[in-house]
């Protein structure tokens, strides 16, 4: 469960923060912080990201 961020792609715009219904994501100036313990896998953040910097954590 959860999402991960590709920091090289991320433009730290906070668009993902804006659509997270569980308030799992925060933007600390230039760094997206994700708290996956609250993530419900709705994937809104992945859809929203203008640059495709977010991805699903695949089960191992």
């Amino acid at each position: 469960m959860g999402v991960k961020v590709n920091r090289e792609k991320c433009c730290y715009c906070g668009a993902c923060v804006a659509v997270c219904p569980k308030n799992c994501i925060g933007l600390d100036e230039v760094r997206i912080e994700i708290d996956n313990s609250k993530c419900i896998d709705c994937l809104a953040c992945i859809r929203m990201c203008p640059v495709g910097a977010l991805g699903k954590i695949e089960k191992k």
Partner: protein
Amino acid sequence: MEEYGVIIIGAGPAGLSAAAKLAERKINALVLDRKQEIGCPKRCAEGLGLGWFRRLGLKPSKEWAVMPIYGAALYSPLGKSVVLKAKKVAGYVLERKMFEKALAIDAVKKGAKIRLKSNVKSARRENGNVVIDVNELGEIKQYSAPLIIACDGIDSRIARMLGLDTTNKLPDVDSGFQYELTGIDGYDEKLLHLYFGNEISPRGYCWIFPKRRGTANVGIGIAGYAEKTAKYYLDKFIASHPNLSKGSIIEVNSGGIPVGGFLEKMHSDNLLIAGDAAHQVDPIHGGGIGISMEAGALAAEVASEAVAKNDFSEKFLGKYTQKWYALRGNQLKKRLKGRHLLEKLSDADFEYLADSITADDVLKIASGDLDKKAKFILFAKKLVKRPGLVKIMMKYL
């Protein structure tokens, strides 16, 4: 712990305009921003219409009003254009990092304080005040005030910390991406250029906003739920325009645009919300600089009344939400329908419209002067071969 009359979170147009207005009224105002530079990185195409200069009492300065604009050119998917051009300046493209610094300097001159690299980590209500813990350049500091004005953008979290949900629903947000390009040409630098079509930009448009000779913001806003990313569509658009693809990128900008309607409630106990945080954006073109500054000033007006009466209750602060809807919100709500129109039109519809509708027609429709009957006559006459399209236009415009 430092105590203030009002604390504003976010040093953008909404927050800085609120700070200036509060300072004018001799209220001890502090602005906190987590960034290390004001006005940067921008999440914006930087256009501001002349009407907003008048309403906000702004005088265009050469320092930040960098390109006078005389109108707009709208392009169909196949490249047919409708040009709306005035003889006089209709607005400016700004250099936002200079613009916001000017706003900051003005607010500080009037008596406000600003602190940067100050990230609010938590907020709680305590004995009629809000206490916030702030990480300021690595040092944890505490501030308190009886009123917080949240102007912290689309990713606002301060309101959520104080119990008001400002989350956007995915269908209500556009995903935006932009390059500031230089070394480009082949477009009229006196106009904003907007390119429509579902292939080009699903539920949105690509834009060229000229900033200087040979330099422009070239960007895109698409539905947040679109399958591919905004960057994918913008790169494709630029690749298909050799006059743009030959340029170099001097800035990369990214951001969400809250185009889908406004927060119903922009206040609660000890809290007011303004700007992108309150989803205060024009639903059709996604612009928000003017709307945010007006809302910030209005929040400051209600805040100063609250300070005078020492009443920071939800009931009293409700005045702000009410006043904002009366001043701007109800008018903007009508424009939400225009956004839904974009979702309904096929690329064939866009072509047909570009063939049949003239610049005069667009101006007539946009003026809001036409009543229902006049609109119907216009559409029926112009779109005679497409009764389905007449129906759609009547429903959404």
